[in-house]
């Protein structure tokens, strides 16, 4: 469906992509995982024909996007990192505009279908300006799929959303998977696990791995959540913690930490902590797991090539 061949991209002296190649088959959700500045947005801008590559080639259904942009772009729906919205327009007019721009004959049915699918019915006659962040993001996704493209390319679709909105968007992506090949970028590991069949891992402009989700767990170090409490835990509290959480809990002075597998556990944990200690002074999530994976993967690559 999509073929990315040996793509390089320099922004002046900055080498953002250094020979990226991969292909995306039909009917999957593929995640592009990498830390900030890895080149995720850049590769997406090149795949959608917004930016030219310094070197290399992108083909959409065997059509080179740079040599033959119009038919290639018809097959793609794209949500850039900032949703491209005309704030003064009403949601319906905006979607109609996007459909007209991409189709010879846009249909009112398709627009209502997309409005329904994304739960936009209640805001469809409001100005985009007046929508909440979550709704704006949904309008951004609606815009990307209004012409029923084969491929959806979504650049960090859940960034900046609250946990409830995040889950809504994830569920939506799972729904959309039936009709589209979906390519999503993110810098959050749990994000890909929730939605993707496969993950492509990118770091410093290079692809370092491509795995099916099942295999990802071998890379995965569990995260830790750290709570600080005002006084050192008493023996009773200590026992209570161990009875409840066993090996997962560690106590270090005023700091109590837990191993977690899922961000959703965090609120449950903080509740238990409040029950046991009557309050917590701070909480932090150790998010280094992704970086650790990269260190692990790159060192493994180095071993292989040696």
């Amino acid at each position, binding site marked *: 469906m999509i073929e990315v061949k040996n793509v390089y991209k320099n922004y002046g002296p900055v080498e953002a992509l250094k020979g990226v190649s991969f292909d995306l088959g039909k009917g999957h959700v593929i995640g592009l995982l990498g830390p900030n500045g890895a080149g995720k947005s850049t590769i997406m801008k090149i795949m959608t024909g*917004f930016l*030219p590559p310094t070197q290399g080639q992108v083909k959409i259904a065997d059509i080179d996007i740079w040599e033959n942009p119009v038919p290639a772009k018809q097959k793609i729906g794209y949500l*850039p990192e900032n*949703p491209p919205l005309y704030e003064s327009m009403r949601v319906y007019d905006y979607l109609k505009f996007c459909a007209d721009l991409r189709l010879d004959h846009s249909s009112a049915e398709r627009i209502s279908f997309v409005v329904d699918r994304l739960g936009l019915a209640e805001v469809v006659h409001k100005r985009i300006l007046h929508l909440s962040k979550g709704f704006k993001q949904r309008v951004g996704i609606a815009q990307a799929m209004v012409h029923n493209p084969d491929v959806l390319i979504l650049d960090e679709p859940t960034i900046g959303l609250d946990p409830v909105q995040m889950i809504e968007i994830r569920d939506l992506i799972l729904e959309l998977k039936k009709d589209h090949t979906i390519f999503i970028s993110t810098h959050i590991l749990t994000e890909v696990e929730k939605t993707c069949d496969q993950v492509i891992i990118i770091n410093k402009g290079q692809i370092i791995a491509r795995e099916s989700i099942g295999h990802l767990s071998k890379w995965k170090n569990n995260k830790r959540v750290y709570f600080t409490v005002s006084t050192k835990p008493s023996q009773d509290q200590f026992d209570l913690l161990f009875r409840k959480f066993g090996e997962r809990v560690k106590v270090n002075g005023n700091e109590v930490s837990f191993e977690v597998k899922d961000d959703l556990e965090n609120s449950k944990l903080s509740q238990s902590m409040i029950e046991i200690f009557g309050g917590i002074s701070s909480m932090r999530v150790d998010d280094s797991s992704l970086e650790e994976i990269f260190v692990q993967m790159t060192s493994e690559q180095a071993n292989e090539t040696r």
Partner: protein
Amino acid sequence: MKPVKVIFKRDFFSRLKSPRLLVILSLCALFWSVIFINLTLTYQQSSILASQPGQTGLLNIHSQLMMSYFSWIVILLILVIPILIMGFISGERKSHTFELLMTAPIHPYQIIVGKFFAGWGLGLLLLACAFFFPMVLSFYVDMDVMAMLSSFLGFSLLVAVYVSMSLFASSLTHSPMVAVGLGFLLNLSLFLIAGFSWDATSALIADLLQQVDVMTKVNYLFMGEFHLSSIFGLFSVVVIFLFLSERMIQAERWQ
């Protein structure tokens, strides 16, 4: 052709509905009405003087009254057109919709042409305000209809030139304010070109400047002198600036 129409529709109607346009149109109409009434009263007095015994008789309303009114129209257009056009391209960058347009299955020149027609449409609305007062006057006094039509044509083309230049200015920068400043200077520079082409000593340079001398060409039309070559010349200036704008939005992606 369809993408041009779609872009035109959005850019034209979204601005038509904005209160900003209403304010601009009202202010311009107010300005022009004051000027026009003033000029008409002055003209009336001098025509009374002219019809006294011993004087030459009737004055020409087109050359005495309308030509001075036209220069006041031009003065305002030079500044107001860039203000109307300022967000046309730089605004798309700000709202990130530039990416929406550039990843749509359309050619960049269709974006520019659609936007040009939207800007031209707004400019013609402005012109309608300017020509409203002479229209009213024409119910009461005899006017040179052919000269008026030719002047309106001249103004439509002048507006087209200003719009294409302002669009080019908007394509050069991310800031709407800078776009207004640049557009204003570009529009103003047409007077300089006219001046240079009259003063040029070398025949070659004079010839060259005449090709792009917009002001002299529209002046012929204002005076009711209709030449196909001036119309063609004005159109080619518009096409050149649309071409440059298209190059600019393309070039941005190559940086």
